[in-house]
């Protein structure tokens, strides 16, 4: 990395590493703040420079925290925004309308005219761009804040009364979603797989159990399959959604999805927009992230030291195992994710 990281960026990275900032929502928020700060700063004169800075910083973050895809997602959003705003202003000046969202497509390929294929040069200064960006950022922020809420409101549409729902681990959006559902519907039974070794499922269970009208069953991960035969719906959160509609979700999600498939139980995944990342699952190893061996088996148990002990954090869930995505903009089929992505990010920003 030739570019020097900003102080804020390094601090954020450290905070995330140490675990002071956790949960993709808060990470996203913090990242957004940083970019906001960058935009407000006078360090750039034109869109081009801005984009370069953003790229650089997000690249640094990516290198430091390859697992936290949300940071680069936000960066992409920013870049897209800049482009759009720029084009808009540009268009205002010389009446030239460019179908901004139409990315690199067959249509474009065919209709390319000489002038349109030389890409817009962003380097020419554009007054009012900063302001435009800032208030556009406002929208993004609000979207971020409301995303969880927007997902919750759809709870009624997906859960009927006296359903048996299975979930895994503890995802913030799932928690809210289920709470909403519990409020609206009676006699729900919620089965929570504990998701060892961290067993965050326990927290979720205790959080939900405050309500009288719902039955909470906590099961070890081993009995997922056994219970699945009675489950009507599987509702899980995810760490991020990949370009092909696959998931990178908490470890164990794959088994859940597979079991659900086996009993043909619909699998609903709650994924706010900022978790959509235009990446494909390439080399398995880089994809995953392995935690502490200590969690799995105590260090003092001597045989453990002879053996290799893994506690991976994520599972890849292929799209065909997912029935439905619920994002803050509504429900989507996994096969439609690509579209969302093209709307969300500019194709030239896919590789930052």
């Amino acid at each position, binding site marked *: 990395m030739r570019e020097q990281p900003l102080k804020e960026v*390094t601090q954020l990275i450290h905070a995330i*590493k140490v675990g002071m900032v956790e949960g993709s929502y808060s990470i996203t928020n913090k990242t957004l703040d940083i970019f906001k700060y960058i935009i407000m700063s006078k360090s750039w004169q034109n869109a081009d420079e801005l984009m370069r800075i953003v790229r650089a910083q997000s690249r640094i973050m990516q290198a430091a925290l390859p697992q936290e895809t949300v940071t680069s997602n936000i960066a992409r959003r920013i870049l897209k925004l800049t482009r759009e705003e720029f084009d808009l202003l540009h268009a205002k000046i010389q009446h030239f309308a460019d179908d901004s969202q139409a990315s690199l497509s067959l249509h474009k390929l065919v209709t390319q005219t000489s002038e349109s294929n030389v890409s817009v040069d962003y380097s020419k200064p554009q007054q009012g761009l900063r302001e435009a960006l800032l208030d556009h950022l406002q929208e993004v922020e609000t979207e971020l804040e409301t995303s969880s809420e927007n997902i919750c409101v759809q709870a009624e549409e997906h859960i009927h009364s006296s359903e048996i729902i299975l979930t895994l681990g503890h995802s913030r959006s799932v928690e809210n979603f289920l709470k909403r559902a519990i409020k609206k519907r009676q006699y729900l039974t919620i089965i929570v797989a504990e998701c060892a070794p961290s067993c965050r499922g326990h927290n979720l269970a205790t959080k939900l159990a405050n309500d009288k009208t719902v039955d909470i069953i906590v099961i070890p991960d081993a009995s997922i399959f056994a219970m699945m035969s009675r489950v009507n719906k599987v509702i899980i959160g995810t760490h991020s959604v990949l370009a092909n509609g696959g998931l990178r979700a908490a470890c164990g999600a794959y088994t859940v999805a597979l079991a659900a498939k086996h009993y043909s139980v619909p699998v609903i995944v709650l994924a706010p927009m900022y978790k959509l990342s235009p990446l494909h699952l390439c080399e398995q190893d880089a994809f995953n992230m*392995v*935690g502490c061996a200590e969690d799995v088996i105590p260090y003092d148990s*001597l045989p453990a*030291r002879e053996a290799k002990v893994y506690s991976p954090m994520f599972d890849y869930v292929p799209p065909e195992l997912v029935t439905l995505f619920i994002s803050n903009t509504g429900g989507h089929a996994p096969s439609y994710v690509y579209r969302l992505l093209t709307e969300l990010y500019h194709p030239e920003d896919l590789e930052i």
Partner: protein
Amino acid sequence: MAQFEKEIVQAVLIADNNVWNFKPLSDDNSTALLPLVNVSMLDYALIALNRSGVEEVFVYASLFLQNIRDYIKQGIETYASWSFKMKVQVIGGEGCRCFGDAMRDLDAKALIRGNFILLGADTVTNADLRPVLEQHKRTAKFDKGAAATLVFKQCSNNLRTGNELLIALDNRNDRLHYHQRLRMNQRETRFPIPLDIFLNNSSVALHHNLLDPQIAIGSPSMLSLFSDNFDFQTRDDFIRGLLINEELLDSRIYVALLPPTQYAHKVNNWLSYQLVSRDIINRWAYPLVPDMGVYKLQQEYVFHKDNIYKSHDAHVPKVALRENVVVQTGSHVGTGTVISNSVLGANCRIGKNCELSNVFLMADVTILDGCQLEFCVVGTGATINENCIIKSGAVIGNKCVLPAKTQLAKKLVSAVKPSQEYVLETIGPHAYIISDSATDDPGDSDNEDLLPQQTQCIPKMGDLPSHLQPEDSDYSSSSEEDGSRAPTPLPDDTNIFLSEVVDSLTRGFREKSNPDFLILEINSSRYAYNMSLKEVNFNVVKAVFGMQSIREPANNNVLGAINAAFKQLGTVVSNYIKSPDAMLDCLKALEDVCEENDLVREKISQVVHYLYDKDFVTESAILAWYNQLDDEEHATLKQSLTKLVDWLNQSSEDDDEEDDESE
């Protein structure tokens, strides 16, 4: 001491420890900068402090002060993760020779304002020290004389690295009473523990499986204590001194044990270096693992299966890496080479068809084709030419150049020709084998933990003993899972039991202690080893005869000895030998004894008769025993007994009466 609000947490980091153990790599750089899994030890320590919320750190160095200064500076520039929210200062002077001096110096400088964390630069831990600090503060509230809280880690590791401890502490207030390091080379069979510890304290707990990661929480008084007594050279001196004359100095030491989930270990020699490297690579010290970008901002490695950490731009074919390997950037490995359980520093070049296992390469090492390395360390910039075979704990110093076909084992090789007396052999223009014995005055290194027994030689790397002695089965939990076939249980339980009984009996005999206690002891050990009653009977008798006094009795008067013994221990024996079968066991035991102790064998008939007289065994038992003795095996025994037996047969009644009278 009473703290005002908002006191900043300070820590003292003692650099360059155990210089001697890391020869020759410690010759031209500080041990604190010795890379462990490609991250210098100093970083580990600093990160540990940072993670436990320390705000100000004083790195105290005496040797290579400048290097450390530079290193810290550079670290801060490259956003080393410890540089956040933590102020790091390097202090120290060439003058200071040992830990004690450092402490005194610090006291003089008066930098420490409150309780502080005291850490060796060679400590690797992921522990959060805040709770320990709190604990120390609490104890300090109650006990103004609380000088320090030592932090230990429980570890059932059957490998000695020189950090193992035996301590006695008051398990009500965790106060340290006794502190002894365990020997590294030959295992102790018994520990002398001053009796008064038990006399003066109502409850004492002994911990014999502790590891000393060189972490301590110090009160300001600790420093002053050092400056007051100049004989305190090392931390151990300090502890010893305080323990010996507590009331004199009116200050006490407390102990805190780390929770089992937290990792802490000290790298004080190559052996522990190897051990800790393995643990780090196996992710026991998480998050202090290579792929978490421990101290760099960026992540350097990609984690692959089988604990392979490969840098993004290392040109190493997958097939070359077996398991537990870390490969730094820019390293290149030739075809046909196989690497396992090793660490490759930056820009290492390894030729074709080499075999590396348990090898630790620093940066810029070049290894040419066909070499075989195992259990060795190769310093920065060293070059190893074709077809060398290096193994079992050899250490190749920085910039060494080994000529082709060199074969080394257990040797330390240094590039520069050191002062004469070390050099054993010269194998090349840039390779001198130097002596690894630390016999010379260890004072010249900061002998913070140079233990007397370490002066024999520097512990080497080697094949770590398998941790799996059958006896450490921590989980019988599902042991019943097993139907008929399981690892056969350890046979020597009974022997341990026997030896213990012998011990307690001999002691009891010597100290004329109350038989009740002896019985109690025996019972307890009986339960400990889960002996059946039969075995107990058998062993007790065996033990009685196995006692020193009977094995080598004064002027070979066995009977006398036995008589004496039984006078003292009769009650004990009779307590076990009641039923006929017990008597039979007893006699069988005797049988065994005869095998070992010929004095007894000669006098066997008398012995038996003695037992009979003293009513330990009945006539019927003796007869039964006699009958079941088979003729060829115990011919001598039998014929020596015949007399007794038929005498019994007839004259039973007579001595019966005597017995009746004597009752």
